[in-house]
């Protein structure tokens, strides 16, 4: 059996392959250590960087989204605490960026907002208005102001998410096509917001573990 894990700040994505059958799962990262899991390759913020088995997250993203990168999509991974993108040109690496110094406009903030205001992610709808989240902390202030003015929490959070989508589009240097990796793929409000700016293909949450598998097969 082969096991690949992407241990993010909040969630750990796992791919197990047994007798050619792939089995994907997600667990809270806080539970990972209790499992004493053995793995062939790994990536993510929450694991030690053992050179023999650890793969750089952007490299894992590049390998997991290779097909789309070679079709001139930007691959963008928006996680709990960071955002990173990679771009190919003529099937070769062209550009990348990775911002992990501020997590106030990423997934963990959205999860906290939903819990704080007791809003279900399914109730969020695309809102054509957006907050500026160049600084996520200022964006949070706008949510509080709007709610204080009587706007519902779900509308305010939708505007914040639209701001994150616009921010992600700018961070990736305004591409025409983006494929998205990470938890935001399961956030229809985010995907719909991003579609206002470019073509979007959500790839799901397991792109990096697929990249680890590809990397393992190469070696």
């Amino acid at each position, binding site marked *: 059996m082969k096991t690949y894990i992407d241990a993010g700040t909040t969630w750990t994505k796992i791919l197990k392959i047994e007798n050619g059958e792939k089995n994907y799962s997600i667990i809270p990262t806080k539970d990972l250590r209790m499992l004493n899991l053995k793995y062939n390759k790994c990536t993510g913020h929450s694991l030690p960087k053992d050179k023999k088995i650890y793969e*750089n997250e*952007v490299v894992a993203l*590049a390998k997991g989204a290779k097909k789309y990168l070679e079709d001139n999509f930007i691959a963008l991974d928006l996680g709990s605490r960071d955002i990173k993108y990679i771009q190919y040109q003529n099937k070769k690496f*062209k550009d990348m960026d*990775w911002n992990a*110094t501020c997590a106030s406009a990423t997934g963990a903030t959205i999860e906290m907002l939903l819990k704080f205001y007791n809003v279900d992610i399914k109730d969020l709808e695309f809102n054509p208005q957006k907050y500026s989240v160049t600084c996520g902390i200022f964006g949070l202030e706008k949510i509080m102001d709007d709610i204080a003015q009587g706007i519902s929490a779900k509308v305010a959070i939708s505007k914040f998410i639209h701001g994150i989508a616009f921010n992600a589009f700018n961070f990736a240097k305004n591409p025409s096509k983006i494929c998205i990796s990470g938890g935001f793929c399961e956030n229809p409000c985010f995907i719909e917001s991003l579609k206002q700016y470019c073509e979007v293909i959500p790839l799901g949450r397991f792109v990096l573990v697929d990249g680890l598998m590809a990397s393992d097969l190469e070696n």
Partner: protein
Amino acid sequence: MLQELSQIDNKNKNIIAFWGYPQKALINEYKLKYPRAKWVDLDIDYNYPDLKFVPDAYCTIIKNICNNAFYLKDKIIAVLAPIGKDKCDSAYFISEILKDEGFNVIQCVFEDKCPDLSKIKLPISKSNLPLKEKVEIITRNIYEQKDYSYLSELKPSFGFWGVPPNDLNILNLFPNNTELFGWIRAVEAGYPGDWEIETYVDENLPTVFFTQAFCSKTALAKYLANKYQGLYIDIDTIPSNSAKAKIEAFLKLR
């Protein structure tokens, strides 16, 4: 260098301090005048107390200059202070401030253009030494002036453009076959203010364009990174894990 500093006699002034790359003539003049003096590069972080002399959001190298200068003030004979295009505007302001604070500051400008680019010698930048060692040797050689022409040249696979980082350990991420470009290359060439040398890169080499955060060279680094499809990176004091990971990913994917 730290060992050298620990040998400094506390009672007497016996340090010639400098930053950037003062002209050889000026260096030689002070070597002759003070043959027993220790030479201290104020650009380097020696972990002296942070005096908060400049604003928090300011170039770390300039902060180092201030912290080092004030910590060693009683021992400094003179500060050789490049203030031209070979250094930066911040260095000019700091040189004036240090003068105002009672330092013996010798301002200098080293903006000479290389008359024949085909004749410059870059044995260290092109050598097979580890990148960190290359940078350390070039900066030390500003006052040591040793001959390194015996070093063997290595076919480069990567490029590093920029200035010596505040934390040189970031250079350990690069393989030995990384060629130096930018200001540090211009220093080895002996023309720290030469635009042609500073902005030259081998466009076939994947190159990391590095500057200190809050340095005006960030504009040039970003421009060149876009022009040559390199990786732009600015770091303030110590590189974050994401900064290191970005460089690792770039080196792996290019």
